[in-house]
């Protein structure tokens, strides 16, 4: 098992000076599913941006998938995002008027793969999130939950080392939200490392690890060993998290 995220004494200050993060240490190992939870203004969004390499810390070190972010140029940082990080946003950010398949394929646009390969893998990723029959649907023809699943497919189509989900259920009703959370648990079961950023403590408590953030600091890092996953197959999948990672299905999608 390897370290996907390594933050050491990360501080982020904005001109003011306002300290959004004050000395955060956080380590995420491969195969983990964790919630980063905190009220608004707690610094969790800043933390997401730092982990997602969209922003650089004022002080401290950030290692993502083994790379020291501070040492990377914009080009290399972009390559790091293209190859190792997948984002899921509260507002989905799908391109309107473009089919689900092409929206997902867009997730591989900056990876250097040909369009044919991108589209093939996009179809596989959509199948993985249970939307195999919605390949040619446009976003406006999909429900909110389906849209978010398309966005998740876009985030995982490149087999990233880390999936960052920013309030993935924030724009969904509770049933769709629960379905999306279940999808994330399933993907985690297949070996994906996932960090869910949320203000919803209930969601965080349903995840195996819960990192509570307040006033720019990590105030608690709780393991929920008996994660109340209402899914009978959870127990079966648990070992794979410590094993060799990907399920056969995921490997197939990679080809």
């Amino acid at each position, binding site marked *: 098992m390897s370290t996907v995220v390594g933050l050491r004494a990360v501080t982020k200050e904005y001109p003011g000076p306002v300290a959004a993060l004050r000395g955060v240490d956080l380590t995420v190992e491969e195969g983990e599913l964790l919630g980063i939870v905190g009220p608004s203004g707690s610094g969790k969004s800043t933390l997401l941006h730092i982990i997602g390499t969209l922003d650089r810390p004022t002080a401290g070190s950030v290692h993502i998938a*083994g790379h020291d972010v501070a040492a990377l140029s914009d080009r290399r940082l*972009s390559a790091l995002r293209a190859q190792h990080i997948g984002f899921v946003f509260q507002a989905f950010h799908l391109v309107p008027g473009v089919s689900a398949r092409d929206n997902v394929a867009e997730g591989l646009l900056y990876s250097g793969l040909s369009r044919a390969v991108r589209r093939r893998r996009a179809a596989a990723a959509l199948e993985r999130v249970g939307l195999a029959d919605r390949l040619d649907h446009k976003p406006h023809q999909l429900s909110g939950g389906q849209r978010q699943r398309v966005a998740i497919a876009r985030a995982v189509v490149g087999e990233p080392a880390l999936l960052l989900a920013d309030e993935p259920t924030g724009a969904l009703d509770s049933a769709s939200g629960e379905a999306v959370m279940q999808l994330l648990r399933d993907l985690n079961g297949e070996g994906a490392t996932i960090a869910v950023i949320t203000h919803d403590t209930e969601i965080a408590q349903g995840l195996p690890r819960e990192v509570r953030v307040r006033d720019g600091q990590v105030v608690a890092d709780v393991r929920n060993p008996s994660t109340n996953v209402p899914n009978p197959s959870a127990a079966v999948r648990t070992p794979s998290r410590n094993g060799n990672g990907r399920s056969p299905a995921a490997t197939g999608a990679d080809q």
Partner: protein
Amino acid sequence: MRARRADREAGGRGRERLRAARLRPRDVLHVGSAGLRSRPVRVVLSALGIAIGIATMISVVGISASSQAQLLRELDKLGTNLLVASPGDSMFAGQDVELPEESVGMVGRIEGVQEVGATADLDATARRNEKIDKDDTGGITVKATTGDLLRVLRGEVRSGRWLDNATGRYPSVVLGHVSAERLGITAPGRQVWIGGRYFTVIGILAPLPLAPEIERSALVGWEGAKRLLGFEGHPTSVYERSADAAVQDVRKVMAATVDPRNPQNVKVTDPSSALRAKAATEGAFSSLLLGLGGIALLVGGVGVANTMIISVLERRYEIGLRRSLGATRGQIRIQFVTESLMLSGLGGLAGVALGAAATGVYAYSGGLPWVVPPWAVGGGFGATLVIGTIAGLYPAVRASRLSPTLALHAA
């Protein structure tokens, strides 16, 4: 992919060098056109400025070129091998200069000369009838003409007949198209009052671009003029056609041949040179109109830049998303420059089509050949690409400098 995963699993120290993938040309076009496809109305409106500018420039150049082509074509048809000898200004003021009677025959014997014709100005006037005042000439001169004149000038009779040996002896007259108009005569058969008697109009000529003076004449046969109008037989103008190669040689000896004793009194002119000069000025298109086209193009460019800036502001989200998907700053820049290039390129294409169509309509309605110079098309389209790049550069740089986190927050 496999190697990377293996690497990650073997310790994830990220030994592989991170290298941003290049966008393939097709993908550049794809991302560059995405913004355009989602807002077609705006594309049309902002490309319109460029289109109008290019269309103006293309049609200004095209119409000039078409007019010039028409003149050159005409010149080609009329030939450039015509020379005219006429009395020059006398060295002694006030003295009437006239050409010797035998000059027509002499010119015909110059080596290389193929055809010779002559006219002589007469004192008589041509009027509709005897009741019209004698001074009311309408600018029409009465000329005696040899039978060969029309062939030498490559002229045509619009209606009726040309003078022949028979009609040339009798009171019959052929009118140039301008004089026919001034006399109000539309068809042969009418009579006009010339030199104290009625002459019957037997023909009306078509326009003669090489000899506008004939267009304003009433032409009477050489022998008829002698018999009926007191003409003494001294030609005023001698027209000759020679082989193209001989034109310069003929020109050298023509004055001396026409009047061996006073060659300095003879003026030799080349009527096609006037037409050539006219063609040259037609080709020199109006720089004022061209300037207007340039201003329209500039305004169009500003419109494109404006649209691009708005597009960048509106699509901060998309920019943030693309950055999160791994787009480098350079790739964001390329996307927006490509979009701007496509926007103005579309305008340029539409402008070329519009300008060519406008030239076509003008040419068709004026009976001109349709000419759109390739250099104008290439230059105009090249200008749009330059404008597109310049207009897109600033918005593109702005887009690429946008912080991805701010971009994602902006909604």
